[in-house]
């Protein structure tokens, strides 16, 4: 082989090695704008105008397993047109991003969800389109949502966690691109159920519904998530039980978008007096339950006005426990004292012969 050809092959081999070393391990990130050039550094942050520290680091590995992994950075941050860029505007979830929705072949947007939200109890506008009191208290998209990670189906199905290799094999029969298969496998299996566990959902609702100032402003007497946590469902949720009902299971009509949540006074609401009896009998919960079961108070609190049963009963048990234990412990204390000082007498008894 000529010397020049050898030199060429060695150089080519060197470039190939360099490429392999530098190439990212996973290649389906949508970072076409090369934003990670800067945002890959963990220390990247700044203090904003309000004095709040804003962390600007993007963990590529985690982002790639999130639901928005295929959305280009510009999809959510369309105001960024150059590098280095000016401070980015807040993300608006209702804009059209660069994903094409496969069934309609239209550019995707969350606008439909906003329409649902408008009709729900969480809308800042009332039925006449007038602002409700304290409209700023009502949640927008980012109040409840972040960028959730994919949770493949096997997590729920007593199989090995992660992507099922066997299932991927079936996908490959028809679909050729692995990137596509991974993306849709994750998407479909994640969306077959909630992307968050019951505890996480309850915590999300608690941001407002356990805030006493917000509750007082909107004339709500219940610390809903706290009282849910006192129920068995809430306790199981604390232990990360995935099968336990969370807020959405009871407060949303089956088959409807969770964004269409209605107030309990609305006759169409899942928790209205008319519909409440059907909550527990959900096919996935207690299918044979009668309406009587839904009469249990899920949100009972230690509050005389809100739940007299719980209030009086708790007071009774505190009194019973204290009233039982303290005298008993008193007797034990005196017993122990007497055993330690057996010959001590407070009053000397008169002897008969005296």
């Amino acid at each position, binding site marked *: 082989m000529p010397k020049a050809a050898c030199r060429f092959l060695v150089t080519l081999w060197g470039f190939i090695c360099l490429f392999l070393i530098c190439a990212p391990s996973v290649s389906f990130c949508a970072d076409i704008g090369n934003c990670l050039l800067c945002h890959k550094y963990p220390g990247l942050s700044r203090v904003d105008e309000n004095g709040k520290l804003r962390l600007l680091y993007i963990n590529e590995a985690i982002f790639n397993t999130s639901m928005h992994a295929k959305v280009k950075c510009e999809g959510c941050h369309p105001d960024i047109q150059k590098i280095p860029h000016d401070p980015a505007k807040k993300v608006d979830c209702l804009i059209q991003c660069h994903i094409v929705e496969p069934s309609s072949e239209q550019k995707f947007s969350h606008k439909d969800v906003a329409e649902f939200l408008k009709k729900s109890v969480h809308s800042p506008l009332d039925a006449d389109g007038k602002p409700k009191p304290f409209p700023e208290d009502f949640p927008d998209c980012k109040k409840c949502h972040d960028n959730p990670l994919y949770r493949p189906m096997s997590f729920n199905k007593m199989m090995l966690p992660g992507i099922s290799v066997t299932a991927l094999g079936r996908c490959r029969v028809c679909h050729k691109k692995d990137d596509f298969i991974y993306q849709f496998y994750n998407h479909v299996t994640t969306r077959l159920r909630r992307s968050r566990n019951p505890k996480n959902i309850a915590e999300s609702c608690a941001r407002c519904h356990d805030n006493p100032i917000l509750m007082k402003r909107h004339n709500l007497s219940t610390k809903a998530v706290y009282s849910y946590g006192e129920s068995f469902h809430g306790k199981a949720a604390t232990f990360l039980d995935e099968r336990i009902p969370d807020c959405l299971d009871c407060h949303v009509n089956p088959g409807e978008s969770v964004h269409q949540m209605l107030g309990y006074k609305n006759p169409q609401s899942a928790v209205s007096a008319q519909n409440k009896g059907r909550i527990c009998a959900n096919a996935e919960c207690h299918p044979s339950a*009668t309406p009587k079961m839904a009469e*249990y108070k899920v949100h009972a609190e230690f509050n005389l006005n809100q739940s*007299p049963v719980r209030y009086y*009963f708790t007071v009774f*048990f505190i009194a019973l426990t204290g009233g039982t234990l303290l005298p008993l412990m008193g*007797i034990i204390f005196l017993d122990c004292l*007497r055993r330690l000082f057996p010959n*001590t*007498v*407070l009053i000397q008894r008169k002897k008969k012969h005296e």
Partner: protein
Amino acid sequence: MASSSRVVTKIAAIFSKSRSDNEDYFTEVEGVGRIPRDIYKHVTSNPFGDLPRYSPHIVTQHFIIFVTFLILAATGVPIYFSDLFWAHYVIGLFGGIDLARQIHRIAAMVMMAASAYHLVTVIGGTISKLIKKEFDIKRTQIPRVKDLFDLIHDFRYFLGLEPYRPKMEKFMYKQKLHYLAILYGSFVLMAAGSALVFPDSLAKLFSETIGKVWPQAMGSESVSTFFQDLARLMHADEAVMALIVLAFWHWTNVHFVPGRFPVQWTFLTGRITREHQIEEHFLEYIRNLKEIPAEREYMRNLLQQIESESLQQEG
């Protein structure tokens, strides 16, 4: 040899001194002699027990209930205190909340079976004794007025106002109180626990029974709803109370007080030490003297030894 002589001398001194203190100090037993109230301080005892107290049935029942109670507490308390950091570790030990719930329910069923076994033993034993005309209410857990007097007497003794403890029966006031509390607590825990396992059945049961008699109470709540909620709340609160009473009252009384520490073996052997029997169950000991010839012989010899030491002292 010298130390045993000193002990006997001391006993004799107490013997002669106390004789004039109180007429109740001595109890005359035919064929044995006059037994001083504080003889328990001077008897020898086998730590595993000298005298019969519980039948093998009761020992078995206690053991099952003791083990299942600990399992129920270990799987139930972390659920009640789910927001505390340690609860997650304890539930993790049981393989997660799903498995912990199943273990809790199985342990509850075993405990209920042991409770049923206990009721059969007690009721069956009582009927058998009634037929044989051997039933004696004084040897049962049934409360009597005497228990109240015993409590007052004991309280005065603890304060130093009485020189000796009261002469109590096979079951003293503490044990009767505890037994009644267990009867009440077990019923509450089982009923309320069933309300958790069968929520719909209990909901229907209350509405179809109590609810029909008194349909409205507590404002808008029906009485059936009231009882449904009550049953659910009672389980955890009663269980916590039972656990506290067990840990601070039962275990202290039985195992941790001076003289019993570190453990009283009665719960396994079914036998009580002589010293304990005489101190806290004096009247039962007197019955034992009449029923057990070997014990009668032991006590007779001890009294003779003390009497001779006393005479030597006086001489």
